[in-house]
């Protein structure tokens, strides 16, 4: 009777191994690619210059790419469970725009508080914004699933407009453009460590994977299974807010990663998060690594910001997912 189960597990583990290998290769490429030439031989011979490049720039960049990719795709999947809609992710629920607004407020009103102030203010804005968005979605009860991200994009545009107007009045519109587009070229040692917040978040999400899957089954079923629905939903929103805040503060907004990866994973492996979460996490990191490597190579030695490459790839995949669902 357990035979099928074992087959399924072996199938999943072979795929995991494959994705893991791809991920590892991407990591190595990411470390070696850049404006400053870096060869494996230099690293092996402990050239101090090469090692400085590696530790001060390449390694922080790699880590933040991985963590941002993992964080965003995990965020996407949590939001999709809570809203019960496949098209929701930080970019299509106003989350990224709320984070921008939060950073802006902290820069203008609490500049002395530094990174702590930035983080807190962004967190608060993300949380309020997501609770507001979910309330709207629950109240309106859309018949058509595609309408939910449309409302989310409109909502995000409004938040973004408020932020831009505010920035314009305070004469920092120029520097705000920087956060509009995710960019990893600013990531160097000493300026990216906040992204490590994503480590515990992902661990907690995995621990609660079963509960988040049940949340996706809806409030009645969840309550009937004895789950504290409101509590788990609140926890999910807090985890999402922390992740979005740390990503947007360190590298800026990167749309669509949280949408495509969970959808692709669900197509092949289903929606049982305990099983799919590792795949989703690795997939998110790999996609960001690919986008970043292309961004660094296309106009070498110049860089295209990852926000742009990720938007192109993600937007395209978004259309495919909508098209497949319609069919």
């Amino acid at each position, binding site marked *: 009777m357990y035979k099928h189960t074992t087959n399924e597990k072996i199938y999943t583990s072979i795929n995991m191994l494959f994705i893991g290998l791809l991920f590892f290769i991407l990591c190595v490429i990411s470390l070696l690619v850049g404006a400053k030439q870096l060869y494996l031989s230099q690293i092996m011979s402990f050239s101090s210059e090469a090692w400085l490049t590696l530790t001060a720039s390449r390694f922080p960049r790699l880590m933040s790419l991985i963590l941002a990719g993992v964080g965003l795709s995990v965020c996407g999947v949590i939001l999709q469970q809570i809203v019960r809609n*496949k098209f929701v992710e930080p970019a299509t629920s106003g989350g990224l725009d709320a984070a921008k607004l939060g950073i802006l407020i902290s820069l203008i009103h609490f500049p002395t508080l530094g990174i702590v102030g930035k983080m807190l203010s962004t967190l608060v804005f993300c949380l309020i914004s997501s609770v507001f968005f979910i309330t709207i979605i629950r109240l309106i009860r859309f018949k058509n699933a595609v309408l939910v991200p449309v409302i989310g994009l409109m909502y995000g545009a409004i938040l973004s407009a408020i932020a831009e107007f505010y920035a314009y009045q305070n004469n920092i519109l120029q520097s705000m453009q920087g956060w509009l587009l995710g960019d990893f070229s600013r990531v160097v040692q000493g300026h990216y460590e906040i992204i490590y917040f994503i480590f515990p978040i992902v661990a907690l999400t995995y621990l609660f994977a079963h509960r988040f*899957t049940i949340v996706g089954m809806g409030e009645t079923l969840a*309550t*009937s*299974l004895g789950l504290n629905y409101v509590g788990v939903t609140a926890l999910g929103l807090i985890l999402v807010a922390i992740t979005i805040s740390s990503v947007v503060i360190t590298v800026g907004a990167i749309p669509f990663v949280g949408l495509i990866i969970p959808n692709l994973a669900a197509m092949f492996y*289903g929606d*049982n998060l305990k*099983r799919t979460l590792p795949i989703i996490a690795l997939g998110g990191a790999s996609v960001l690594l690919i986008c970043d490597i292309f961004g660094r190579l296309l106009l070498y030695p110049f860089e295209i910001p990852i926000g742009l490459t990720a938007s192109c790839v993600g937007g395209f995949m978004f259309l495919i997912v909508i098209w497949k669902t319609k069919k």
Partner: protein
Amino acid sequence: MIHVNNIHKSYGTKSVLNNVSASFPAGQLTSLIGPNGAGKTTLLMMIGRLLKVDSGEIFINEQNITDIRISMFAKQVATLRQSQDFTMRLTVEELVAFGRFPYSRGSLTKEDHQAIDNAISFLSLEPLRQSYIDELSGGQRQMAFLAMTIAQETDYLLLDEPLNNLDMKHAVEIMRALRRLCDEQNRTVILVIHDINFAANYSNHIVAMKSGNVYDSGSVKNIVTEENLKALYEIEFEILQSKHGIVCNYFHPQEEF
């Protein structure tokens, strides 16, 4: 044994349940029948603690349900609503495994696996074990959800219109399974059902509701009579005794012709 005592519920000024009192005997299959809007589903959801009561009390084995923690309650009462809006891609086995959540809280033990196997074989779902539920037919899907509810191993099962949208074969399969749950495992099943013939042939006990009140309750023999059903549904009924049971014929109401 479930006792419902003077339950009242209203939405705004419209009252849905007026001082409803009823009891549901343990180890039996009770059908909640009545016309649309009678408050059957509302009452069922309140017993399952999925809806708040405005006033009144509900007791399970003499214990007020509001005194039971929701995580403990899930080990006593399992509720299955209609599942049309369920969009998740899970295999039948994964879905049934979630029925063990009240016990395992996520990591399945040996007993959990046993309960999952039992539930799946109870409904003969082995061939579908690894199928994704979004690829099943409506009847198979309903069976899978029922298996999940059975795996929850509660003494009480509440089902809201479990036969909705099913063909006759699947409807009979579901009702037989529920009957066996009562007879073989001594579980208590309460269901909201519109098909009076299934209610009459498979229940022990019937609670008939009409416009927010309990119209009558009792054994099938006492409730399923031509006069009662006529008053309840406001159409003519003809009750035919056959070799295997009774058939309520309401397809040709005489008055209108």
